[in-house]
Structures are given as C-alpha cells and as structure tokens.
C-alpha cells in the first residue's frame, strides 16, 4: 500500500519538475541591425539600450559616420531591453566577462554600481578630449572615477516647471507670477478650490522633487567626501514644504508614484494634475504619451524657497559606455564620441530625442532651437530654450557617488512613501532612512 503511494508521489514530483523546466521565460529584447549605408566589409558592433528612441538617434549618427569615415564603416546591432533587465544583464555579462555588447547605455542611477572595483569599461578620455571644452563638465564627471571618464553623457536634464494652462486659466491663475513655493501654494489652493484638481504631485518613488529642493539650497544627498547625509536640515526643510503643500491640497500622490510612469502619464493626460517640475527630457514623454495636452503646456522656471536661489538642477542622465570586451575598442570609442558629443550629435539629440544637449552652444542656435517643424516646439506653448537660457547659469548638479544607488533605493521605496502616503514626520522618516542607508553601505 505505502509503496504504491511512493510511486505516485515520485511520478507527481517528476511531473512538477519537468513542467517547471518547460516554463522558462524568454526575455531576449528586441534586436535589429542598422546598416546606415555601410558596405559589406563594415565592422558590426553591438549596442544595448533601454530606450528605444536612443536607437533612432544612433541610426541618424551612424549614417553620418559611415559617410564621413568610408575606411571605418560600422553596422550597429541595436538591442532594446526593459530598464531593469538591461542593466542586470549587462552587469552579469561584465562580471563573467562574457556576452557583453560593445557599446551600452547605463542610466546614471545605476552607473556607480558599474564603477565598483575595477570598472569593466573602457576609459573614454582620449576620444572625449577634442569635445571636452564644448560640453558641460559636470555631466562628464557623473560618469567618471579616478580621473577616467567612462560614459558619454546624453543631456543636461535641466529641471523646469510644466504648467497645464487650461486648468490654470479655469482657476484664474497666472503661472508667470509663480516665483516661490509660497506663490505656488496660493495658486495651488486657488486651483483646488475652483476646479477640484491638484496643482501637482507628491512623489513617492523617485527623487526628482527631493533633488530639486536640495539643489535650490545648494545642497546634496552626500557631503563633500561622498558620505550620505539624507537627514540634513536642508532636505528636512524641502520635504516639509512639500508635505505642507500636500496637506493644503496643493499636491497629491499619483498612481505610479511620480510623473515619469505610465500610470502618471494617463493621469496628467486626463488633466487631473496641473503641473510638474521635471528635468527637460520629460518633454519627450509629453509629446509621446500625453497627446491630449498638446498646445496647453507652458514651460517656466521652477519655484524656489527664497528669491535668488538657483532655479534648476540637472536630473537623470544616461552614459554611453564601451565595454572592455568590445571587439574593436578604439573604433567603438571613436564612434560613441562622434555619436554623442560632436556638434552634429548634440543638434540631433535635440531634434530626435527632445533633450537639452550637453553642448550649450546648441542652446543659442536659433535655427535649431526655434525650428517651427520640430515636434517638440509645436507641442508646447512657449519655447523651452527661452526658459532654459534664462536659468542657464543656475543649473545645480546632484553628485553621483557610490552611495547614490542605495540612497535612491531607501528614499524611493521607504522614506518618501512614509512621508507622503502615511503622513509620517519628515525628520523622523529621514533619520531612519539615514540609519538604514549607513547600515546598507557597511
């Protein structure tokens, strides 16, 4: 009797086992080979990215490169993978020394993890040198370690305020009069009273707002030595202002936790929130994901705590890297520098991607920045570069340090949720976060 049972259980467990084998999920991402007018003998390089649009930019630059360098032609195999997937796969490939692409995009939030120990990336110093004087230095520093530059930056990511003028007009608010958070609060209360809509979001899953508040006060998440200080009086003050705005019905949390998520695009597109303060690149999200707001969004500098404070900071970023295992390191490096840092590349980065290029000369090229055929120009009520040039000298930088991924994680999953979802005391939440970060970094 018992023997029979054993056999049945054995068979059952084998079935489960085999069945488990069959459930392998494949997530290979989307690949395509860009020819870019290259001849048969061209070298094929592999490029991984987590943003499909970046591939389009590389396609344009590839055509130019192949036309200009007939002796060094390139075919580019572009593979687009989801954000987490791509970074995780790249990390494993670099760790094992197998299967990494020649060129890859690494997001600034993940970059410090790739610089740990001996970076398995090629220093780009020699190919960056010719362009170094034309681009914003702080954006290069984000991807550097011990004097070596490992990533070619994509944009400045200057934070701006985006106002839905349709809602503001209904409430009788003039956004151009908003200079400080006090002004913003009054405007927001008016919007809530008149329309029942919220002025903006209280972000729980990203640090855009926290960074903004620190940058205005000339502070950072880390001290000069790179040690985390998230319970600084400045951050406490900044988040307290935001929490007060939330309590006054000016801000509210949003599905997705922050404006740059699918759920939030929908909420904004429906006109449930009247403003967001986000880095420049959010413009491409407006154009691609919030079509109903076309012609309604006006751009302005972000409000400050006290007049005279800096009115922007560089947020987000992607560094394009060349891996140590690249087939032709020198060729890959030259191409990356050409495709990301040359003047042509900077102009294309605006045209195709709608980003604020790291070569600030482009910012004042009227024919580029005021081109009426440009879809980004057509979408917004006023010209983004007019605002950008106005705040140009006050763009602060939030440092990227080895502690940054941990800081992002602890604040973005725990502290901000406690503050804005549970209404926890800001000082208390940040003190706990500081403790947790220190513990994690041991």
């Amino acid at each position, binding site marked *: 009797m018992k*023997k029979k049972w054993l056999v049945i259980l054995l068979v059952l*467990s084998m079935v489960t086992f085999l069945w488990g084998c069959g459930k392998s999920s494949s997530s290979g991402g989307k690949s395509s080979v860009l020819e870019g007018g290259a001849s048969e003998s061209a070298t094929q390089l592999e490029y991984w990215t987590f943003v499909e649009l970046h591939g389009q930019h590389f396609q344009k630059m590839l055509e130019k490169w192949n036309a200009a360098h007939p002796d060094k032609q390139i075919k580019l195999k572009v593979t687009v993978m989801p954000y987490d997937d791509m970074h*995780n796969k790249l990390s494993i490939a670099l760790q094992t020394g197998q299967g990494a692409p020649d060129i890859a995009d690494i997001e600034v939030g993940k970059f410090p993890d790739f610089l740990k120990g001996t970076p398995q990336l090629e220093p780009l110093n020699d190919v960056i040198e010719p362009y170094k004087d034309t681009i914003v230095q702080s954006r290069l520093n984000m991807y550097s370690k011990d004097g070596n530059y490992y990533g070619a930056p994509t944009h400045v990511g200057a934070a701006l305020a985006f106002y839905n003028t349709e809602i503001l007009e209904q409430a009788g608010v003039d956004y151009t009069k908003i200079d400080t958070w006090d002004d913003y609060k009054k405007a927001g209360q008016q919007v809530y009273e008149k329309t029942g809509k919220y002025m903006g979001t209280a972000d729980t*899953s990203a640090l855009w707002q926290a960074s903004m508040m620190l940058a205005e006060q000339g502070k950072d998440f880390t001290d000069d030595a790179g040690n985390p200080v998230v319970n600084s009086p400045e951050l406490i003050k900044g988040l307290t202002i935001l929490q007060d705005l939330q309590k006054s019905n000016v801000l509210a949390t949003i*599905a997705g936790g922050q404006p740059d998520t699918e759920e939030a695009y929908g909420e904004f597109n429906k006109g449930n929130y009247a403003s967001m303060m986000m880095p420049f690149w959010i413009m491409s999200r407006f154009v691609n994901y919030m079509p109903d707001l076309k012609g309604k969004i006006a751009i302005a500098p972000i409000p400050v705590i006290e007049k005279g404070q800096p009115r922007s900071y560089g947020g987000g970023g992607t560094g394009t890297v060349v891996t140590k295992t690249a087939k032709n390191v020198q060729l890959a490096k030259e191409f990356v520098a050409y495709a990301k840092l040359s003047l042509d590349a900077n102009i294309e980065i605006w045209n195709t991607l709608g980003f604020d290029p790291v070569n600030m000369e482009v910012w004042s090229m009227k024919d580029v920045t005021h081109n009426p055929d440009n879809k980004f120009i057509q979408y917004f009520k006023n010209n983004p570069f007019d605002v950008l040039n106005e705040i140009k000298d006050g763009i602060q930088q939030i440092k990227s340090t080895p502690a940054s991924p941990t800081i992002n994680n602890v604040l973005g999953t*725990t502290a901000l949720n406690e503050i804005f*979802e549970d209404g926890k005391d800001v000082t208390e939440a940040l003190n706990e976060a500081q403790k947790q970060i220190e513990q994690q970094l041991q």
Partner: protein
Amino acid sequence: MVKRFLYSQKVAPYVFVLPFILVFLLFWVYPLGSSVGMSFQKITLGQSASWVGFANYAKLMGDGIFLKAVMNSVVYMVLTIVILVPFPMLFAVLINSKWMWAREFFKSAFFLPALTSVVVAGTIFRLMFGEMDTSLINSFLGLFGIEPIKFLKGQTTGFIALLALATWRWTGVNMLYFLSGLKNIPEDYYEAASIDGASSFQKFTRITVPMLKPTTIYVITISIYAGLAMFIESMMLWNGNNSPKNIGLTIVGYLYRQGIEKSDMGYAASVGIVLLVVAMAINLAQLAFTGMFKKED
C-alpha cells in the same frame, strides 16, 4: 568483456541512475558548494574576490530590510498553506463526488490559471488592483460605495493582492494532486462506513482526510518551499523588485536585489544560504512531525 559489462546486473542500475547523479552534481552540488564559498567572500565587479569570514552573515543579522524580507516570505508561506491546502482538498472532494455535473469542465477551469505565465498574470493583477478608481477591483468596490483603495501601497492590501494571485493560480494544481489521491481510496471503505451509518461529514473526516495524508504532506512540502522561494509574483505585481516600503520584498527578491541589481554576489550568496537553511529546517521539521521518516511497516 564489454558485453559482460553491459549485461551485468550489478552495473545496470548505476548506469541508469548516472544521468541523474551527473545532473545533480553539476547543477546542484557544485553551485551549492560555490555559493557557500561565495557567502564568505566579498566579490566586486572585475572578478576580484577576497575572503571576509562571517562578515556577510554578521551584516545580514543587523539588516532590517533582510528581516523584513524574511518576515514577508514566511507570512506568505504560512498564508498560502492555510488557503491552498484545505480549499483545493474541498474542491477535489466536491468534483469527485457522484452528484457532480460537468466534472471535466470544472477540472480544466480550475487548472487553466496554472497554464498562464506568471508574468502575464502578475501584470493583469497589477492592473486589476491599481489604485485608480477606474481599476477593476476599485470600480467593483465603488458599487458598494467604498472609496478607492491603494492596494499595492499598503502591507495588508498588498498581501491581499499577492494571495489572490497565488490562490487563483495554484488552487487547480493542488486540487489535481488531491484528486489523484482520492482515486486511490478504495470505494469499500465508504460502503462499509455507509452500512455502519456514517454521515457524509464523518466519512470525510474519518476516511478521506486520513487517507489523503501522503498527498497532503506532499502538497505542504512543496508549498513551504514555493512560498519561501516566491519572487516573480511579487516582482510582476509591483512592476519591479522595489515595492513601496518593501511590502512585497521576499527573500529571493532581496537576493536578487543584492546580487544582480547591486552586484554584491558575496552578500547575495549568504542570503541564499540562509534561505536554504530556513527552508530545509522547516521542511524537515514538518516531515518529522508528520512521521515521514518512520520505517515503513
């Protein structure tokens, strides 16, 4: 010589088990051994590793997020067992009963969710449990005048979503185990019981449940491991490994965060070893308690 070897009755069994032994050594013993080794190392990008003794384990003990992950996994495991043993057993008995109609339909209907990919199911459940008033669950609750709930942002509500997903997905599988167990209970027992005047309920508690014991033990055993090792469900439900306040973080999720996302393989290995020890201890205790190690009579 060769022929004698091939036809030898002594050698044959070893030849037959050899593939399994090889697979077991290569894909189980070797990785386990190297994980144990790694858990005593600090490994950084660029393949450099140094021995750090028990530093990883010492850090684990004081790691609040790890303890949170262990809590989540254990609570999830206990709750899945509480739900996924009695209910599938009950459904199996109902489907197996003489008066059941459309038996095959219900069998396949219960089993169908197990065939869908966790990725798809998790994504659908995330949308269903969305915090907007237009999401499926909230619009249903809205019919009763209940305000929209931010399911995936709270501990209890998050677990409700997680358990709903697990229940939907695994009820059918466990039910099949119990069905096959029921088929092996001789009809005579029930007849004899009927003659003695036993009620249906008495038959269920006195015959069905005891006779299903081996199946129940098997289901509990796999549920303990599956519960402790759960990861993809949480990852898909929260669209990533970072749920708000880590309400959905599991032990494997933490291992993934440390090893893959932060490329701290040594620390991740120690998380894995702790998981193995915990799962093994609970399973052995459970098996000993239910008398699986007693000699067969």
